[in-house]
């Protein structure tokens, strides 16, 4: 996988990747509705933070971490919502929009008629998804600092972690999109996304889950994203964070390469 990626990199043209991103920026400017929908995506995790983190948090009181440290419930939930916003920002761009461009508007077919290569399309799309995701997470971090849920320093430390989360879900999102048969398959995706959202140590520590479920959850991506982002945002560092980061990196890279291959196979015949 890694060698394929390197091989592809050698002849990669930054300007061509840039051109793919540029098309998306152009699409952004073309209508007010896409803008509004894009911006509104930021509010969803924020509303959850305010409702569950702060509203329910007032009922919960402080929460004890496995290490013994005691933090406010809102401090516990906020980094999870941050990870979720990185995930959903990247996924909405690489699933619905990507699928539409690949299957319906034939955007990729048109791009491939030019010197742009499939891997460059995948990389361009992923970069664009990362832009969207980091706009969400950047804004969310500002809110967290303003609410006193993290310090400016730890917020800066968490920012690259959210990029990694965006990369991981963006890559896998594209890979999934290339496998989708039709819109009805998106129901399954939404289902999976929501199950992850509810059970990735987001609202309560995974240590509370039954042991079998804890093992299962530890295999899923949002769990690693939440662990990594939470560790950095609340300054609870440990070697396990490297494991979380490695998981996300591998996931993003695999998704990217797979997506590029599928574009090649479905559209370059």
């Amino acid at each position, binding site marked *: 996988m890694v060698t394929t990626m390197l091989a592809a990199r050698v002849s990669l043209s930054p300007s061509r990747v840039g051109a793919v991103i540029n098309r998306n920026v152009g699409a952004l400017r073309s209508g007010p509705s*896409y803008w509004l929908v894009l911006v*509104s*995506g930021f509010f*969803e995790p924020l509303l959850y933070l*305010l*409702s569950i983190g702060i*509203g329910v948090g007032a009922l919960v*009181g402080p929460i004890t971490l496995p290490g013994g440290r005691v933090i406010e419930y809102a401090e516990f939930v906020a980094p999870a919502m941050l990870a979720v916003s990185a995930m959903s920002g990247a996924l909405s761009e690489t699933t619905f929009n990507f699928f539409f461009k690949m299957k319906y508007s034939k955007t990729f077919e048109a791009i491939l008629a030019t010197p742009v290569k499939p891997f460059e399309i995948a990389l361009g799309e992923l970069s664009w998804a990362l832009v969207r995701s980091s706009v969400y997470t950047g804004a969310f971090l500002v809110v967290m600092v303003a609410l006193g849920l993290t310090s400016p320093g730890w917020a800066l430390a968490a920012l690259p972690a959210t990029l990694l989360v965006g990369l991981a879900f963006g890559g896998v999102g594209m890979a999934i999109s290339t496998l989708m048969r039709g819109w009805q398959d998106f129901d399954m995706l939404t289902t999976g996304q929501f199950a992850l959202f*509810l059970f990735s140590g*987001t609202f309560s520590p995974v240590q509370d889950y039954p042991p079998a479920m804890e093992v299962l959850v530890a295999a899923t991506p949002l769990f690693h994203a939440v662990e990594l982002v939470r560790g950095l945002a609340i300054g609870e560092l440990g070697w396990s964070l490297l494991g979380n980061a490695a998981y996300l990196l591998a996931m993003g890279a695999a998704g990217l390469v797979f997506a590029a291959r599928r574009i090649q196979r479905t559209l370059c015949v």
Partner: protein
Amino acid sequence: MAHPTVAVLERHLHLYRRLWRASVFSSFILPVLFLISIGIGVGGYVGQIQGVDYLAWIVPGVMASTAFQMAIGESTYSVLGDFKWVRAYHAMRATPVEIHDMVAGWMLYILLRVEIAAVVFLGVTGLFGALHSPWAAVTPLIAALVAVAAAAPVTAFAASIDNDSYFALLFRFFMIPSTLFAGVFFPVDQLPPVILPLAWLSPLWHGVELSRAATLGVAPPWPAAVHVGCLALFAVAGLAWAMAAFRKRLQD
């Protein structure tokens, strides 16, 4: 002789027979997952609220909000689609089916969907031991009222617009905030005083309070008749708006 309203309902049910699999998650599984994650997971840290377990406290809220979300979700793309892409209502318009049959048939369909989900949910939560009063039996009726109060205006909205990206905004700026801040997960008196009146304006809040009063066997914060009245007002105004919107759309 089948009544035209029944014929319209039949058409929607006929289509649902094809598409029901996709709705299993949102109608039945999602609310239960929510209960497990928030009710049991977070509830373990909450302890008692208003004298009961957190799980028992949020069950009626999740039930009302499921009815609310289903009613809204169903009344968006399907309604717009039947005007814009399928033109099913235009086809009905050429028959003895009248505007009120179209709206009534659609509302009956939503009610049927919501009632099935509500009854299943009631059974599941009964097994969890989260129902504390025989009054819980009336919650499906409250869910029905919430469903019409939410579905009627959203149906009217969907019949008036031409671009489906408004729905994403409706979900994010109306449906999700309502669900999160209408007393489903925490009491609304915790809300800042400036925001509290917004919760009163949401049909969901009235439904949540009525359902909670029913499953816990306590009195709702306002007299029950006032809550019912507010929901009925939403429903009646929404139905009138929906009829006007259908009539306008089918006239051109």
